[in-house]
C-alpha cells in the first residue's frame, strides 16, 4: 500500500489546499480586516459581524433570499412532480420528451438568463409582445415585485428539470399493483395520487426540497445576471451582498462575514429540517 499512497500524495495535497484551506480560511476571514487583497490581515474580532448584523442591507438581503428560495423551490416541486406524473405515462413521443425535458438544466445558466431576458425585453421580446397584444404592459424587471417574480420564473425554468427527472426515477419504484388495486376500489386519479403514490415518494421529495433549498439559497448567477440585485435592492440576497462587499467595495472581511453567516443560517435550517422531517424519512 505504501507505494500506492505515494501516488496519491500529490493529489491529496492539492485536495487539501483547494478544499480544506479555503473553507477554513473563509470561516476565519470574517474575523479579520484586509485593506487590500495582498495586505496582511488584521485581526478585528467580531467587528465585521457586528457591523454586518446592524446593517439594514443585510436583513433586507436575508429576507429577499428567503422569499426567492421559498417561491422557487415550491414552484419547482409543484411543476416537477406534475411533469413527472405526465412523463410516467406511455404516449407517442414520450421517450424523446423524457430526454428533452432535461435541457434547461444542462445548458449554462447564462444561456437561460439571456434567452429569457430577450423574450421579456420590452423592445421586441416575444413574450412581452404577446402580453402587450392583449393589453397587458408588464414591467418585467422594472419594479421590485415584478423583478422578484421574473428571477423566480427564470430559476423555475432552469431547475424544474432536476425535480422532474429525480421524481420520475422515484416513481419507477412505486408498484403498479397498489395503484390498480386502488383503482378497482373505485378511487379517482387525485385520490390515488394523494393516498397511494405520494406516501411512497415522500422521502425522495423531502431530500429534493432540502437540496433545492440549499442550492437556491446559495445561488448567485441567475439574480446577478438578470437584475444585479435591483431595482432598489429588491432582489439582492446574501450571496450578491457578499460578492458586492468583497469584490466591489473591497471590504473583504465584511464580505466573508456575510458569506459565513449565510452558511451558518443554512446549517441551522438544514438541521431543523432534518429533525422536523425525521418521522417521514426514517420509516
Amino acid at each position: 500500500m505504501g507505494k500506492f499512497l505515494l501516488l496519491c500524495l500529490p493529489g491529496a495535497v492539492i485536495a487539501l489546499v483547494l478544499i480544506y484551506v479555503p473553507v477554513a480560511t473563509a470561516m476565519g476571514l470574517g474575523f479579520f480586516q484586509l485593506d487590500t487583497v495582498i495586505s496582511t490581515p488584521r485581526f478585528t474580532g467580531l467587528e465585521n459581524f457586528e457591523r454586518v448584523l446592524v446593517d439594514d442591507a443585510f436583513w433586507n438581503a436575508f429576507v429577499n433570499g428567503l422569499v426567492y428560495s421559498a417561491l422557487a423551490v415550491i414552484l419547482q416541486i409543484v411543476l416537477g412532480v406534475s411533469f413527472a406524473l405526465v412523463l410516467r405515462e406511455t404516449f407517442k413521443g414520450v421517450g424523446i420528451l423524457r430526454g428533452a425535458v432535461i435541457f434547461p438544466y444542462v445548458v449554462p445558466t447564462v444561456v437561460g438568463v439571456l434567452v429569457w431576458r430577450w423574450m421579456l425585453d420590452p423592445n421586441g421580446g416575444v413574450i412581452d409582445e404577446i402580453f402587450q397584444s392583449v393589453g397587458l404592459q408588464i414591467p418585467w424587471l422594472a419594479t421590485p415585485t415584478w423583478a422578484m417574480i421574473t428571477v423566480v420564473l427564470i430559476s423555475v425554468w432552469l431547475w424544474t428539470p432536476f425535480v422532474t427527472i429525480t421524481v420520475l426515477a422515484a416513481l419507477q419504484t412505486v408498484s403498479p399493483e397498489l395503484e390498480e388495486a386502488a383503482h378497482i376500489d373505485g378511487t379517482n386519479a387525485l385520490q390515488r395520487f394523494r393516498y397511494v403514490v405520494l406516501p411512497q415518494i415522500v422521502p425522495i421529495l423531502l431530500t429534493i426540497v432540502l437540496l433545492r433549498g440549499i442550492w437556491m439559497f446559495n445561488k448567485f448567477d441567475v439574480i446577478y445576471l438578470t437584475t444585479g440585485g435591483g431595482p432598489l435592492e429588491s432582489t439582492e440576497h446574501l450571496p450578491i451582498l457578499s460578492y458586492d462587499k468583497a469584490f466591489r467595495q473591497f471590504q473583504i472581511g465584511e464580505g466573508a462575514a456575510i458569506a459565513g453567516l449565510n452558511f451558518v443560517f443554512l446549517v441551522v435550517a438544514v438541521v431543523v429540517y432534518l429533525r422536523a422531517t425525521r418521522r417521514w424519512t426514517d420509516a
Partner: protein
Amino acid sequence: MRKSRAMSALQYGWAAVLVVFTLFPFYWMLVSALRGSDNVLTSRLTPGPFTLEGFVNLMDVTPFPTYLTNSMIVSLSLTALTIVIVTPIAYALSKMRGRLGRALGFSVLLGYMVPEVLLMIPIFVILVRVNLDNSLAGLVVGLLSVTMPLGLWLMTGFMKTIPPALEEAARIDGASWTEIFWYVILPLARPGILTVGIFSFIIGWTDYLFALTMIRSEELKTLPVGLSTLYGKFDSSWSEIMAGAVVVSIPAIILVAATARHFVGGLSQGATKG
C-alpha cells in the same frame, strides 16, 4: 387500463404545457439566432426569414472565438486534472474502513455543500498571492475546488461497487497495489471516470462566478462571462447573442444526449450546478 378517458385529456393538456414551457425558449433562441440583426425584432412565431448573418457576425466582429477557445482550454484541462487527481485518492478512500474513512468521506461532502461565494473569497486571495489571478491556469485551479469534492464523492461510491474478489485474485498472483490499481481497478472504473469527466466538463463549461471574479482581461474571458457582456457592445443585436447562446448550448446538449442514461443516473447522486 388504469386511467379514465377524461383524465387522459387533462394529461395531454399538461404534457403540452410541459413541452411549451421547457422547449419554447430553445425554439425561440434558434429562430432569433437565424433571423440576423435586421429581422430579429420580427415577432412572428413561425421561423424565418433565415440567414447565417448572426453567426457570421458573432465569429467575425465580436471576440466570441477567443471566449470559445478559452472555455475549451479551461473545461478540457479541468476534466483531465480532476480525473487524474481524484481516481487514485478515491480508490484509497474506498479501501478505508471504519471511522477515519467515514470522516474523510463526510468532510469531502462538506466541501461540496459550502456555497461557492464563500469559497470564492479565500481562493481569490490565495490566487492573488501566488500570482495566478487573471489567468486561465488560476481559473482551472479555482474550479478544481468544486470538481474535486464532487468527483471524490462520486468516484469513491463507484469504487466501492467493484467486487474485491478481483483485486484479491491479482494480489495472490503477486501484483503490487500500484499494479492492481493500474491493471484491475482503472479498466473497471471506466464508467465512473466517464461520469466524473462529464460533470467536470460541464462545471468548467458553465461556470460563471469563478470566471467573473478571477478574470479581468478581455482576451482571457470564458464563454459565460463573455457572452453575458456582449449585449450593447460590438454592434451586437439579440440575434448575435442568441447565436452565441446556441453555440454555448451545443456541447452540453450533445454530451447529455450521448450519455443520457449514464447522466440521469448520476444526477440523483449529486448534481453539478445548484
